[in-house]
C-alpha cells in the first residue's frame, strides 16, 4: 500500500544555485518572513550566477536532479556588474543544446530574484516545482552504477 502511494506521487528533486548577493538573500528573506514554499528544493550558494559552470548543471542532472534553478540578480544589478549577463548567454545556449539533443530544456531555469523579493522567491520555487512535477522524473542521462 505504502509502495503504491509512493510510486503514484512523484516528488521532484530540485537544485537551486543562488547567488550570494541577491537570490540567496531573497531566500533568506522568505525564511525570516515565514513564507512557506515547496520543500523539494535544495540550495547551493554561489558567489554569482556567473559562477555556475554548465558542467555543474549537467552533473546535477546526471545525479538524478529533475530540475536545476539558477538564481541571480536582476540584469544591471549584479554585484560584479557583468556576472548575470554572462550567465544569461551561457544558459541560453546550453538550453538550446539540450533541447536539440532531446532533453527537455525546461529542466534548467534561469531566474532573477533580488534580496527584497522573498515572496517572489517562494512563488518561483512553487511554480517551478509544479512544472517539474508535470514533466516527470529525469531518466535519460542519469548515471547508473554499472560495474
Amino acid at each position, binding site marked *: 500500500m505504502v509502495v503504491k502511494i509512493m510510486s503514484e506521487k512523484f516528488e521532484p528533486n530540485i537544485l537551486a544555485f543562488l547567488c550570494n548577493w541577491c537570490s540567496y538573500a531573497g531566500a533568506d528573506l522568505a525564511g525570516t518572513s515565514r513564507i512557506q514554499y515547496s520543500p523539494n528544493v535544495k540550495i547551493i550558494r554561489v558567489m554569482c550566477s556567473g559562477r555556475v559552470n554548465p558542467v555543474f548543471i549537467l552533473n546535477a542532472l546526471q545525479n538524478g536532479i529533475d530540475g536545476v534553478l539558477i538564481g541571480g540578480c536582476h540584469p544591471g544589478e549584479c554585484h560584479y556588474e557583468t556576472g548575470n549577463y554572462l550567465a544569461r548567454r551561457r544558459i*541560453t*545556449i546550453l538550453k538550446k543544446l539540450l533541447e536539440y539533443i*532531446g532533453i*527537455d530544456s525546461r529542466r534548467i531555469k534561469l531566474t*532573477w530574484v533580488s534580496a527584497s523579493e522573498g515572496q517572489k522567491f517562494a512563488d518561483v520555487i512553487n511554480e517551478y516545482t509544479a512544472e517539474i512535477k508535470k514533466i516527470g522524473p529525469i531518466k*535519460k*542521462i542519469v548515471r547508473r552504477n554499472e560495474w
Partner: protein
Amino acid sequence: MVDTKKLKNEILKILEKKDVKHVICYTAGSYGFQTRPFFISKKEDIEKIIFSPLCLHNLSLYVNNNDEKKIGVVVKGCDSKSVVQLIQEKQLDRKKIIIIGIPCKGVIDPKKLREKISEPLEQVDVKEIKDKYIITFKDKKHEFNKKDLVFDKCLTCEHPTPIIYDVLIDEKIKPTGKEKYEQVKTFEKQTIDNKWKFWEEQFSKCIRCYACRNVCPICFCEECMAEQLNPQWLYRSVNISENTIWHIMRAFHLAGRCTGCGECERVCPMDIPLMLLNKKLEKEIKELYDYIPGTNPENIPLFAMYKPDDPGGDIK
C-alpha cells in the same frame, strides 16, 4: 589546380630566412591516396611537398609558439579560420607565424571516395577539371562530379580564400556555396523523443577515444575537463550517461569558437555526426548574437562579453 611550383618556391623563400624553424605543409602518405602533414626544415626535402584535393588535414593544429623561431604553415580557407580563432584567443602570436594561404576549391572526403571505388586505392593521381575530378590509379580512369566527392563542409563553404595570409598561392576565389544549415533545420523539426532516440544511438557508439578532441585545433586546454580528477566531473566508464555529457560538454566548450573545419567528424572512428552538433551551435550563435567565430582576430570571445539587450530579456 594549385600551382605546386609556386608553392614550393614560396616555401623555399621562407626556409631561407634564418629565423624560421620549419614550415608545416603536406606530403604524400604511406598509402597512395592518403596525404600527411609534413614539417619541412631542410631545403633538400622541397620535392616531397604536394598539394592536391586530397590534402584534407587542418594544419593549424600543429602550429605553436613554443619556440623562439617563426613557424610557417600552409592553410586552406577553412583552416585559416582556425588560425584566426587561435590568434583571437591569444594562443598564437601573429608576428611569429608565416601563413601561406591556398584558395581551395574543396577537398575529397575519403569516406565518399571509398564508397565509389572498392579497389585498393594506391598510386592515385587526382586531376581537377572544372566541376569534375579525374582520378587515375593503375591506369584506370574514373571521372566524378565534384559535388559527389567533396566534404559536406566544402559544399557550403563561405571562405574558400584564406581570411589571413602572408603569401597567397593562386588567385582569390569567390565563394560558391552559402551555409543555410539545412541539415540542422530538418533535424530540429523532429519531436523531442525522436531527437533523443537519434542521439542515444549515436552516443552509445562512442568509445571515448577523444580523437575528436585531440584533432581539434581549438581544443588546447592543458588539462581537459574529461580527464580532470579533482573534481572528477566525468567518469571514465563508457555508457550513455557519461558519453552524452562528454558530447554536450565538448560541443558547449566549442560554442562560439568552432570554425567548422569538420576535423572531429572526419577522424571519428565510430562515424558520429559531430558536425550536426557543432553546426547547431554555430547557427544559434549567429541568430542570437550575430557572432561568427574565426572571422576577425580582434573580436572579443562570445562568452566573455554581453550586450544588455541580449536575447533572454523575458526571463523573470
